[in-house]
């Protein structure tokens, strides 16, 4: 930014009628700055979560549990905005399974209600790791007596079942909230703080194991985010950012657009909304234990808008603003830029309506209620978002064409 401002000033000095055109590389560089900012916030919030979980474990009470839950929700705000970087950047996607996998089979980790069905035929679905010293699953026999971050990471997708998830935000969410036993009715998970009382008063047994698990799984999350911050940090000649900024500009732009397009349509509109709605299934809800899903979707979308607009509102309220795709498109095809600007407002409004419904003081509706069979109002809210995301995605394809990208299919082998 500084360098360019200087050139800009120089340009103005030389001739007041020309403005220096924005280059693709400017936008690519800003994208890495943006990523660094969002991941830095995600790490900071995860560390706060870690601190609040430690306070909760030091003195378990309804209040300290509530504080830890609040910290988890806050940690999701910047993290969901990082998802726009996931699909286009292998360095992110490769570790995503460890950080944000869902849906998870609760019975894999902890106690579940007696009518819990789990994934029939997946013996991991009822493994109850907290109760075990040795986990036997098919041909695997694993010593789980010591719950370390490394051990937990190795348990993900054990036996090939993608529902066997041991780590990440949703494992922590389950450990803080417990099962949401309300189906598509109001209410989230309601795990008692006594599940974490070491010794006297321990509920549901295995409290010490549960404490150890929560500590280890949170440490792993912080470590993973720390790694990702390092990958986006400037001044490291060996990290992902260094490789990314050296890519051919068209390839880097392809990754950027592929990332936001994949998140907008296949993932957010498809996996996270269409599937949940078609299946009427709270099991297909992203933040299903905490009922935080509407915010997960809202900030996922915000992350997409951030990347296009080259801006990010930090957790402390300050703004990052860099050279943006929006500016680049405006220079090449102002009509398209205007359309995209309008569409972003439309999509934002549809997501805002989802949040408003959840926050309605008279009749609050959580995502798991919206997807209930026969909930016309809830289905309409979700279908509107899917339609707006479809329109957004079409325009993202238009943006790609305007930037000379005919095939929005990045070559993701270079890191």
């Amino acid at each position: 930014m500084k360098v360019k401002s200087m050139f800009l000033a120089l340009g103005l000095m030389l001739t007041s009628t020309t403005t220096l055109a924005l280059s693709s590389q400017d936008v690519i560089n800003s994208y890495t700055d943006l990523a660094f900012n969002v991941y830095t916030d995600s790490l900071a919030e995860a560390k706060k979560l870690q601190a609040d979980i430690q306070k909760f474990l030091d003195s378990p009470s309804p209040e300290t549990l509530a504080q830890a839950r609040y910290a988890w929700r806050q940690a999701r705000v910047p993290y969901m905005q990082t998802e726009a970087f996931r699909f286009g950047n292998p360095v992110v996607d490769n570790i995503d399974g460890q950080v944000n996998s869902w849906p998870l089979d609760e019975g894999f980790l902890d106690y579940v209600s007696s009518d819990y069905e789990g994934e029939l035929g997946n013996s991991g679905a009822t493994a109850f790791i907290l109760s075990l010293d040795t986990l036997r699953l098919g041909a695997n026999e694993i010593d789980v007596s010591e719950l370390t971050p490394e051990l937990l990471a190795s348990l993900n997708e054990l036996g090939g079942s993608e529902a066997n998830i041991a780590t990440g935000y949703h494992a922590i969410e389950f450990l803080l909230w417990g099962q949401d036993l309300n189906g598509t009715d109001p209410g989230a998970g309601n795990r008692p703080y006594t599940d974490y009382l070491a010794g006297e008063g321990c509920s549901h047994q295995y409290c010490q194991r549960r404490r150890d698990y929560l500590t280890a799984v949170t440490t792993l999350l912080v470590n993973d985010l720390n790694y990702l911050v390092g990958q986006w940090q400037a001044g490291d000649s060996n990290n992902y950012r260094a490789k990314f900024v050296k890519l051919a500009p068209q390839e880097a732009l392809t990754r950027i657009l592929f990332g936001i397009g994949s998140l907008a349509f296949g993932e957010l509109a498809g996996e996270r909304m269409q599937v949940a709605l078609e299946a009427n299934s709270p099991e297909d809800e992203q933040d299903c234990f905490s009922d935080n899903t509407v915010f997960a979707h809202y900030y996922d979308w915000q992350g997409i808008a951030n990347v296009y607009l080259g801006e990010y509102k930090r957790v402390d309220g300050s703004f990052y603003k860099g050279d943006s795709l929006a500016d680049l498109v405006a220079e090449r095809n102002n009509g398209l830029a205007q359309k995209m600007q309008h569409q972003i407002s439309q999509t934002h409004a549809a997501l805002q309506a989802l949040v408003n419904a959840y926050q309605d003081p008279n009749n609050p509706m959580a995502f798991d209620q919206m997807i209930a069979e026969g909930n016309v109002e809830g289905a309409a809210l979700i279908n509107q978002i899917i339609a707006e995301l479809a329109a957004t995605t079409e325009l993202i394809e238009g943006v790609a064409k305007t930037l000379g990208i005919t095939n929005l299919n990045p070559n993701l082998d270079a890191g």
Partner: protein
Amino acid sequence: MPPVRLGLITPLILLLAACQGAHQEAAKPTKPVITIPTELGGDNSVDVVSTNAFSLPSPNMPFTERLNFSVGNSFFRNAWVIAPSTTTARDGLGPLFNTSACQNCHIKDGRGHLPVDHNDNTVSMLVRVSVPGTPATAADGIVAHPTYGGQLQDFAINGYTPEVKIQFDFDHSIVTLADGTEVELRKPQLLLSDFSHGDIGSDALTSVRIAPPMIGLGYLEALTEEQLLAQADPDDADGDGISGRANRVWDTVNSQLALGRFGWKAEQPTLQQQNAGAFAGDMGLTSALNRSDDCTQPQTECRQAANGGDPEVSDDILAKVTFYTHNLAVPKRRNSDDPGVIAGGALFQTIGCSDCHTPKWQVGEVPEMPWLANQTIYPFTDMLLHDMGDALSDHRPVYAAAGDEWRTQPLWGLGLTSAVNGEFGFMHDGRARTITEAILWHGGEAESSRTNFVGLSTDQRNQLLAFLNSL
């Protein structure tokens, strides 16, 4: 070196001489060796070597289609549940079933495997069953077992009894290659016990099947009947010892016989019908194509169980899962420029493997999925049935496929099998634990290629395996 090795050299020379002689006598002109490119799936090849190597969408698919892929993926991956449930779109599992989700067998969209011992589960495989006789109608590929139907379900929802308990013992044998290397083979012996409705009877025909990988299937459906039949040689008219027969199977949607393409004996004409069959047989889920699951007349309680809607798998969900199964991309090759790998690719073609594992096909128009159209692909299959010898025979015919006949399996993605899922098995029943074992099980029409393989020098064998692992 031990003296035993000296004794092996002479037979090796004789073997090679015999093979070369046989090849020269064949009426068929020797096909030129072709170069195998890096991109086996044409423009829809993907560059990934991780556990997700078989799970990515066709990269040329437009963004606007990715929602269908994602929804299909979700219904392929997530577990179906017992009816009634609030999860109405995904209930109706069982009452009898083999597993609760497609992905449990097609592990990470890859292969299944046999249980390792008597206590291990049998989730990623199944056992087909029938009795001898002539099927009643052209629509029936088999005569279903009067009590246990066409497939043995070894799981049941609460309150119901699984049909059977499935276990395996293994018979082991040793094959010695020309360079003295010993390879242990294992042949599974199926053990059935704990029958829910009485003994299955001595005339029951059984066939163990593991789940195959899911990549590139849309391409294989897009090859035309004309293309595939052009390569068939049912009476071995060219005298090369290789027949290549098309299975003729019932197409439920069009109510007529069609070319069989999918399944270990090419017993299904389309992915849609294959998927509907798996929903019904493996998970106890009805669809428009399979109005009932595998409950037979004597299984009264099975037929009377609560259902999850009629049908349980809606047309929309069947369509989306089918879309998903058309569009799992084929990974690019690794090390394709390595000289040893290139030499192995030539050996693959000169020792006879490519006579059935046809390397190259040209896909024409694909009206419903234009992003798959007009691509040169390298699946390494002719999609036809071949006599694979008695050791592999299940002695259980399906439509035109005899007990010893099996459809040539595609080989693309082969080298990423263990990266996708560490536990796997090759061949229809998962008996082979390595590619070498798989090759050594080849018999019948593949006998001469197998013999050629056994006779390879250590270097040549390593080259051939390096080539196969590069796929």
